[in-house]
């Protein structure tokens, strides 16, 4: 069995990153010009890494599937970005941010990575402010903070409800500056179809030009994947429609191990599902939990009347409302971490207390906050979110409480990487949501933006050099080389095979099916029987797909159905790996809730003795069982205990 080398630097936790930087290899400025780097994805991680690497002097080629690098899905992040600035003087520190993140992740993340993340968090805020990101300010001109789940301090910086947009536009600005300078070459509407390896190292990618349909070859000395998460395996999620797992999945198939595939985040505050034509779910930012109170009726008969439309929530008196988060978790109340809040909502709805016409919703109520602060304050804080809710649901949340329900939002799992964010394929680095690294079994709110920008601005520009330092004499890889020939033949073969099926079912119908299997069996509650069934169902779905899918047109020119078909075929395979991973982990931790493993109070029950490790899966062939490798996790700076949000 291969031993996974996490390459965690020696020394005390607080000095590891400093030590690494002090002793790592660097590339001299004249040699940087000779080196090409490919970046796939232009979200927070990819955009910031590409800009920073180019500033250092490397030649960077950047690829995205959208029409502009500014449209990557990081743009949709609403609430904020964490940093340990301690501007509010409320007791925050690098250690506390590190501690909250490890605890929030239910002790399934690497200490060294998380500490580094907390350490550079402050640099991110400085960087973004210097770029002109319009963060919220107080009247004295200083930066404002708010609170997010899983923390007892206010450490979240924000730009209204559009923090992701503003941070991404900051990175996009930096990237635009480098494109103008000429050291970044931007390729839009391109989808990565394969990673090309030479002598076991990542040396290029094969992409499909989504406008012309042509396959194109690009060589480099290293490849960085920053292609986002795989929440769309569930079909309905808060991800953008085109967010997909294919780039990461191709890397997995070429030998990169996949870490913690079953760790997905279900966000507690999304607008509930309303119809079978529905294409996506919309998130209502976690920041709303600063002022909104979550409740369901105390009496089942009230819930039933609401479901039938015979009773309005505004007519339920205070004493008949169950503020179940405040009741169960007095210390953190409505600001418990996402996994805890989601499960608590599911529990109430499963017991029959849910609201809305489906009974699959709970209330998020701003009445008290409006009475306390006035409507105008609430409007200033959350106006755009309230407007979004009103447009979708056709109900005024200032007057009637919002209805929310958990939905798939983020994937903690991803390509396994070491401390340097390098995968098990030398030269293939992975950043942002696409890697598995920093969040363990559950990510805290406002930490995804922090991780993406930490990877891109402050980690990869260092660690990639450590690898590239001995690649300076490696010649450019000829795109006519046999490695590219072979890759193109494989990719074209796969496209031809898909187009030749000419069955009777649409790509979307398969996507919905894989999504339903995943939601039912690999979603909020998982069991051995359910997971075994999911694996069997996904196997037969894969067979059905490869016999009956119908893709009109051919592979020349733009073909949207073909693009979707490639992604859905990968989702079906990935779903199976997720189910296997969940089945192999006989414990509950963070977002991974195995119904067999829970405390009497229904909280997740970890098994640290047997499962305190990172699961890293090795691909062995589409019909072969993947091999599980284990990276042991050790906690030297944190006492591992049962997560407790009832008391501080």
């Amino acid at each position, binding site marked *: 069995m291969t031993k996974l080398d996490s390459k965690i630097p020696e020394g005390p936790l607080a000095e590891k990153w400093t030590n690494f930087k002090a002793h790592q290899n660097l590339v001299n400025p004249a040699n940087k010009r000779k080196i090409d780097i490919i970046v796939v994805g232009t979200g927070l991680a990819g955009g910031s890494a590409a800009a920073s690497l180019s500033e250092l002097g490397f030649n960077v080629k950047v690829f995205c599937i959208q029409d502009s690098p500014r*449209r990557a899905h990081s743009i949709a992040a609403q609430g904020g970005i964490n940093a340990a600035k301690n501007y509010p003087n409320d007791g925050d520190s690098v250690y506390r941010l590190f501690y909250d993140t490890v605890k929030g992740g239910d002790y399934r993340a690497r200490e060294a990575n998380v500490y580094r993340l907390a350490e550079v968090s402050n640099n991110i805020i400085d*960087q973004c402010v210097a770029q002109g990101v319009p963060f919220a300010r107080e009247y004295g001109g200083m930066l404002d903070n708010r609170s997010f789940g899983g923390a007892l301090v206010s450490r979240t910086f924000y*730009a*209204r409800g559009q923090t992701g947009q503003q941070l991404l536009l900051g990175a996009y600005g930096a990237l*635009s500056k480098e494109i*103008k300078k000429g050291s970044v070459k931007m390729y839009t509407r391109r989808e990565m179809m394969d990673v090309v390896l030479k002598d076991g190292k990542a040396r290029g990618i094969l992409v499909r030009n989504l406008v012309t349909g042509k396959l194109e070859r690009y060589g480099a000395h290293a490849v960085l994947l920053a292609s986002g998460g795989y929440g769309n395996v569930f079909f309905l999620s808060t991800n953008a*429609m085109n967010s997909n797992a294919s780039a990461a999945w191709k890397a997995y198939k070429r030998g990169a191990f996949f870490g913690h595939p079953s760790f997905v985040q279900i966000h507690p505050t999304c607008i509930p599902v309303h119809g079978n034509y529905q294409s996506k779910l919309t998130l209502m930012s976690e920041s709303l939990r600063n002022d909104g109170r979550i409740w369901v009726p105390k009496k089942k008969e009230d819930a039933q009347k609401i479901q039938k439309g015979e009773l309005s929530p505004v007519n339920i008196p205070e004493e008949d409302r169950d503020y179940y988060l405040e009741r169960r978790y007095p210390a953190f109340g409505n600001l418990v971490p996402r996994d805890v809040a989601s499960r608590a909502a599911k529990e109430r709805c499963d017991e029959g207390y849910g609201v809305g016409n489906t009974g699959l919703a709970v209330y998020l109520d701003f009445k008290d906050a409006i009475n306390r602060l006035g409507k105008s304050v609430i409007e200033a804080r959350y106006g755009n979110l309230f407007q979004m809710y009103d447009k979708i649901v056709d109900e005024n949340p200032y007057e009637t409480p919002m209805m929310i329900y958990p939905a798939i939002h983020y994937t903690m799992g991803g390509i396994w990487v070491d401390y340097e964010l390098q995968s098990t394929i030398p030269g293939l680095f992975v950043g942002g949501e696409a890697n598995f690294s920093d969040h363990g079994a559950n990510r805290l709110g406002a930490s995804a933006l922090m991780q993406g920008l930490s990877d891109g601005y*402050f980690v990869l*520009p260092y660690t990639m050099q450590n690898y590239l330092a001995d690649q300076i004499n490696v010649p450019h890889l000829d795109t006519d080389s046999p490695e590219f020939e072979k890759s193109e033949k494989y990719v074209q073969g796969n496209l031809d095979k898909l187009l030749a099926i000419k069955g009777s079912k649409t790509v979307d119908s398969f996507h919905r099916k894989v999504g339903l299997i995943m939601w039912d069996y690999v979603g909020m509650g998982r069991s051995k029987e359910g997971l075994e069934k999911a694996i069997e169902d996904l196997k037969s779905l894969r067979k059905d797909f490869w016999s009956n899918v119908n893709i009109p047109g051919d592979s020349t020119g733009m073909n949207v159905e073909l693009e979707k078909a490639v992604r859905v075929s990968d989702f079906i395979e990935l779903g199976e790996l997720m189910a296997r991973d969940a089945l192999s982990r006989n414990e509950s931790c963070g977002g991974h809730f195995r119904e067999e493993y829970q405390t009497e109070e229904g909280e997740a029950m970890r098994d640290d003795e047997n499962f305190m490790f990172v699961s890293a899966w090795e691909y062995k062939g589409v019909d072969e069982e993947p091999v599980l490798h284990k990276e042991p996790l050790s906690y030297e700076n944190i006492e591992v205990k049962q997560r407790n949000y009832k008391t501080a």
Partner: protein
Amino acid sequence: MDLKLKIWRQVDANAEGKFVTYPVHNISQDASFLEMMDVLNEELVTTGKEPVAFDHDCREGICGMCSLFINGRPHGPDDSVTTCQLHMRKFKDGETVVIEPWRAKPFPVIKDLKVDRSPFDEIIRSGGYVSVNTGGVPDANTIPINKENADLAMDAAACIGCGACVAACKNASAMLFVSAKVSQLALLPQGKVEAKRRVESMVAKMDDLGFGNCTNTYACEAECPKDISVSNIARMNREFLHAKIT
């Protein structure tokens, strides 16, 4: 509800396009406009026809990818929304809905309803940023910014780069888009250093790329899904004038 859709079909950038009419049935009032388009495309694929190509991604009004010209209005008959946030309750049963791509010379059609908006990226590249490299910047709170300016900068920065302003303008002017970025950075101390160079090169690039002039009809502001104000255009004009006389 049942609708008759009159949709612009065009094979590629070089082909000639035309309207084709498709009926759709049993559409829910609560569906979004793009979900209605999904239903149409499912039907087209099932009956062996080519689906309609249109740009979309986040479906929550922030990525700026969706771009349909519906019944003569960019992003359709609702205010302050993108097409993906437009809901079918805004239409009447039996209505004929005309769906076109953005019509502007700098935004050529790629296929059906998809257009090429890369000129917007080119404008930003000409100077729509603060030229700082990663690292070596001061602590964030060493730059105090008055709240009013920070809020106005945020109002301008909310632009999603969808291009509705250009599509709405009879001259295909990009003034609202360009002024939003110029304004954001003009309002912040970080942007002051390069203010002169920025406004000059962005305006020159906008003219180069074939966007038309502003004749103050305010159609851009009326159709902007993010309510970007034309006062940004006034601010940009002041910035431009100031740059030219200093």
